[in-house]
């Protein structure tokens, strides 16, 4: 009882109504927020919905003191406040959980929570107090964390729990969560939402940044939509629907994807008994058997870190297999190099697009020709045919509606969606027989995601085989003809698109339902 009293004494007062008025924030060349108004009432879950680059994170970083608005004001309980740093915001009872967790991997959970707190036992770090108070928090909110574990030992879901505990420990009454579900399994999302409800019941308010409509509809009380740095409007969830929100977000209608029924044709990719080691030298793929046929999309579903990355790299020829065969169009390509695989008809959309798929410092045009600069139609002798290359690049940019100021713009300055569209354009322009797409829409906005999905479906109709590796189960379920679930390096089950529920697939993903 005594510790509880101490806890409540140490916690700052919960902020009441938080209001942001006419916020303007500019970065060189970008008006990230223009005249945005936003407010949160106590005990409310307010979703901030918008595409990547719509200005959601920027807006919230101003509320959290990381940036200062160029214009406009922030009021707490009607009083204008100016936060010059996160420390000010924390003192005002505001917490933020970032998309990239703000944890120090080499410190323990307790040390991470103690970080930045005044130590009661100066000069020593005071983790004793952390232990006592976190026990209460864990009880109150159902958030179990291992205080002595190092953060690097924790799964992503556990790290997120640490972040939430940390925010609560610091006495945050209003917590901003930036895309908190992006890294979680469906079960973990359910758990997270349970936690949200308990927090709201305790009187906390939450700001939930997301671009996933389903989640917003499921958890939020109210939603504000941002588009291109402007607030498009706010709605009570009970008074709106999916279609209206999509329209507000994207600015136009987005048709639901409706893959046509197709007969799958000849085998494109056949994997038998594939084994490979992971980066740490332990076996990451333990005998994968899988087939992808012409006109078919096969989705690989699984929780991050169960061998998806290694599978993609093995197929692309970037990781050596220790056993098993990989056949493309019936030809064994197990020993072929990356270039030989490309020539044999494989297209690869890598997970780490800035590491494996493109070079950020290079221009848009140069990235189009990373593989093909030596192709006959783009060179004369040892010289490159500048005009033919320009025309080809311009055509791809137009066709795949890549938004770029020019062909010579460095790729890294484009948004994730545009970079991904460009990579896809490059890969598809070779008319491949098989596409291996790893996380093709991670970090990509709704419009581009829709476009990329369309492209994959078109390829399917044109007779290409598609292997779609994704941690976004909605994406897998929307596109795949068959869904293969991977768990600890093994395919634990393959189901037809409509024959399994999310829950069943989710259980298989956690290794239970197989």
């Amino acid at each position, binding site marked *: 009882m005594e510790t509880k009293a101490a806890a409540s004494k140490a916690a700052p007062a919960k902020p009441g109504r938080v209001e942001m008025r006419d916020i303007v924030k500019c970065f060189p060349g970008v008006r990230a927020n223009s005249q945005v108004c936003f407010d949160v009432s106590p005990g409310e879950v307010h979703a901030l919905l918008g595409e990547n680059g719509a200005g959601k994170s920027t807006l919230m970083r101003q509320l959290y003191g*990381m940036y200062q608005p160029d214009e406009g004001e922030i009021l707490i309980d009607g009083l204008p406040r100016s936060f010059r740093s996160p420390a000010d915001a924390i003192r005002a009872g505001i917490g933020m959980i970032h998309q*990239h967790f*703000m*944890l120090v*991997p*080499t410190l323990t959970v307790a040390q991470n929570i103690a970080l930045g707190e005044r130590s009661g036992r100066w000069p020593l770090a005071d983790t004793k107090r952390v232990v006592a108070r976190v026990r209460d928090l864990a009880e109150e909110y159902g958030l179990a964390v291992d205080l002595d574990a190092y953060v690097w030992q924790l799964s992503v879901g556990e790290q997120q729990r640490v972040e939430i505990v940390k925010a609560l420990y610091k006495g945050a009454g209003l917590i901003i969560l930036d895309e908190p579900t992006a890294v979680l399994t469906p079960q973990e999302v359910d758990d997270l939402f349970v936690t949200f409800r308990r927090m709201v019941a305790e009187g906390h308010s939450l700001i939930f940044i997301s671009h996933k409509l389903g989640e917003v509809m499921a958890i939020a009380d109210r939603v504000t939509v941002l588009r291109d740095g402007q607030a498009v409007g706010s709605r009570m969830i009970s008074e709106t629907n999916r279609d209206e929100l999509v329209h507000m977000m994207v600015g136009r209608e987005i048709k639901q994807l409706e893959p046509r029924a197709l007969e799958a044709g000849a085998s494109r990719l056949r994997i038998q008994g594939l084994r490979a080691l992971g980066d740490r030298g332990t076996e990451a793929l333990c005998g994968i058997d899988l087939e992808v046929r012409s006109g078919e999309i096969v989705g690989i579903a699984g929780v991050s870190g169960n061998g998806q990355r290694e599978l993609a790299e093995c197929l692309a020829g970037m990781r050596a297999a220790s056993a098993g065969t990989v056949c493309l169009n019936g030809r064994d390509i197990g020993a072929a190099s990356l270039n030989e695989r490309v020539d044999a008809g494989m297209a690869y959309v890598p997970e780490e697009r800035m590491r494996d798929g493109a070079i950020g410092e290079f221009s848009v045009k140069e990235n189009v020709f990373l593989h093909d600069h030596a192709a006959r139609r783009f060179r004369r002798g040892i010289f490159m045919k500048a005009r033919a290359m320009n025309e080809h690049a311009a055509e791809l940019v137009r066709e795949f509606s890549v938004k770029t100021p020019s062909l010579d713009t460095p790729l890294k300055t484009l948004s994730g969606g545009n970079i991904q569209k460009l990579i896809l354009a490059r890969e598809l322009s070779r008319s491949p027989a098989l596409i291996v797409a790893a996380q093709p829409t991670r970090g990509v906005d709704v419009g581009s995601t829709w476009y990329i999905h369309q492209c994959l479906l078109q390829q399917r109709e044109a007779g290409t085989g598609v292997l779609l590796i994704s941690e976004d189960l909605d994406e897998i379920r929307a596109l795949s003809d068959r869904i293969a679930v991977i768990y600890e390096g093994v395919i634990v089950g393959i189901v037809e698109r409509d024959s399994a529920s999310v829950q069943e697939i989710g259980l298989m993903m956690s290794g239970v339902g197989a």
Partner: protein
Amino acid sequence: MKGLLSWNVLSGILNTMIGLATPFLFAALGETFAQTAGVVNLGVDGIMLLSAFAAFYVTLSSGSLALGLLAALLVGLAMGLLMSFVSVTLKAEQGVSGIGLYMFGLGMSSLLFKVLIGTVKTVDGFKPIAIPLLSNLPFVGPILFRANILTYCAFLLVPASWWLLEKTNLGLKLKAVGQNPAAADSVGISVSRVRYLAVCMGAVLAGAAGASLSIAQLNLFQDNLTAGQGFIAVALVYFGGWRPVGVLAGALLFSVANSFQLWVQVLGVKVPSSLAVMLPYVLTILALTVTANRARQPAALNKPFERGES
């Protein structure tokens, strides 16, 4: 070879090792603080040189060793502020600014030496202090407990640094700022302030390293007195895996190899001198390849912090 194995020689080797290790310990432990907070300070050697000169000159002209030491520490602090201003506030490339600092220290100490002293002079440096009782222990007594005050300080600094990094609030902040400055910033820690502190702590200790050379061990000053010891100290930080005890191991290994090769030559063991002098370096490189472990390297090492870049 028989001569090499006597107690007398062993004690001689270890005694020389303790002396040689002193400046390495100061400089490398200081650099450990700076690097833990994410700043590589390659200017250690320059700081050591200028501080060594300051200590020597002040001692020579005032006759007070305490004033000389104080001067060295103050010069270290000033150089640390300069380094942090350039690399933290101005966010300059750390490697380049560190080399710049080294050149400054090298040139400035050489110039001041020429103008203010100009020739070989000596001072009476810190004298060995025999610790009662302990210094009379057989074998270890003369090795460990008859050293000068700065050597005692350097060795006591090892557990002190461990305690600071592992147990204190400041240690947490240093690590956080070096591993994930954005995380530190997000909980209200001023990344700049912590880095300034870390670099300055390191530079003050580099100042102590300089003083230990010019007014405790050699008792004189010469152009380029350190002969690159500051750079070896930076390497020892990597060698030690950013842990004080690892730095201690590295400093002792390097020093013992050096003192061993000197004894090998003195005792007339038939080894070409050019091979003998290579021994410490070869050993260090070998040890580095065997123990190379970047797992503990601060993730934000060498990266200036800009809020909102993630």
